[in-house]
């Protein structure tokens, strides 16, 4: 299977070249954020407050790593289930977010926001967190440190293995492939 290498920032040109089913190796900077961090970002947006991260062309990885052992860059890290972020996501996409990394399918509202804003949803394989941690080269604490594992961190990753699940045209990889293999 062909794998494409892409780099952040994910420009409109890159995003419009991605199609559901593409395997990519992503390099560059991505943020981690999951349940509580999403609620906080969302509430800040509603109140018109300044966000602790710049969402313009940003990539968010739904993940919370294990604690960093001595002499390691990061502990194990992998995707959490994305649907829990669905109710906050369209608002974040409107504010500039361009790519999300997680596992499992998204709500119709998220798929629609991906389409109208030229964004992309990448699926990562769940439960291969020791392997994925090897792609993380740098970690920086950025916001909500009180949330511990759920805090927002900026990761510098190299060749992060991902699949395009929902592309800007509204295609859905889970739906199409699962139906292909259904008996």
């Amino acid at each position: 299977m062909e794998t494409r290498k892409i780099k952040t920032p994910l420009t409109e040109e890159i995003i419009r070249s991605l199609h559901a089913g593409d395997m990519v190796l992503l390099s560059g900077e991505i943020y981690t954020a999951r349940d509580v961090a999403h609620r906080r970002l969302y509430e800040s947006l509603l109140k018109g407050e300044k966000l602790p991260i710049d969402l313009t062309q940003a990539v968010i990885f739904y993940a919370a790593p294990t604690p960093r052992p001595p002499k390691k860059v990061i502990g194990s890290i992998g995707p959490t289930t994305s649907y829990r972020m669905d109710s906050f996501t369209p608002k974040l996409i409107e504010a500039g977010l361009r790519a999300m990394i997680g596992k499992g399918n998204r709500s119709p509202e998220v798929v629609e926001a991906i389409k109208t804003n030229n964004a992309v949803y990448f699926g990562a394989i769940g439960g291969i967190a020791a392997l994925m941690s090897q792609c993380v080269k740098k970690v920086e604490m950025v916001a909500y440190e009180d949330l511990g594992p759920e805090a927002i961190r900026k990761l510098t990753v190299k060749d992060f293995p991902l699949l395009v699940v929902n592309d800007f045209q509204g295609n859905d990889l889970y739906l199409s492939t699962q139906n292909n293999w259904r008996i």
Partner: protein
Amino acid sequence: MGTEIETKTKIRRINAKKITRAVKKLFIEANTVLGEDVFEAFHLASSREESATGKEVLKKIIENVDIARRKKMPICQDTGLAVVFVEMGQDVHITGGELHEAIEEGVRQAYADGYLRKSVCDPFTRANTTNNLPAIIHMDVVSGNQVKIIAMPKGGGSENCSAAKMLTPAAGIEGVKKFVLETVENAGANPCPPIIVGVGIGGSLEQACVMAKKALLRPVGEANRVDERAEQIEKELLASINNLGIGPAGLGGRVTALAVNIEMMPCHIASLPVAVNIQCHVARHKETTL
């Protein structure tokens, strides 16, 4: 008064610290070293998988288990709720502490010293308890003077896809199969397939759930040896689940589940409880007997 009570085995004293040490070791080990039975099941699945993406996913899953073992890292970042099964011999006397506290101290130490993620929080404020406590402890008193401890770190992704239902007795075997299949289908890619499906049939609402969880402790590939009907349903369900096409990581393919494990017991004349506990491919559990 004062007379020695007759017991089958000799009363044995076990120090609470010994329990704490054992629990700590089990949780660190369970989180970093996957069971051989599950590992073998991945290889078998890989040879059976026809989808190229599915094969690629299984390859990465196998590689991940290797890396985790070699580097002593958690296999998955979700190091789970600490579920503990204890079979306590009735002729054991715990000294130097209280059993429940000793177990929780073991969990606390494992998650702190083993660099495991603390994933427990208040249900409403979502404030992290910061030590992965409370643990979920299931205690059975059995005969003898030994203590068996099973540590099972259970991830949230697959637990969230689990379900229980009180069926009508008329629903029968077909109703049970339908409910299990629906639960797995609704779960889709979320519980990190290939999954193991634990099913509890009968008992009461909570007993069905406990049976479903205990069913996940059975070695992968081993059938229910107590009830032929259960064995038959396991086979049929495994085939229908794999026909759903969800596949490894939900990306389509032949292998959605590695096993279906059913535990059964009689129930009330008015009910037919069924519980489905879904286990992701990071099927972690380790046990020891003291």
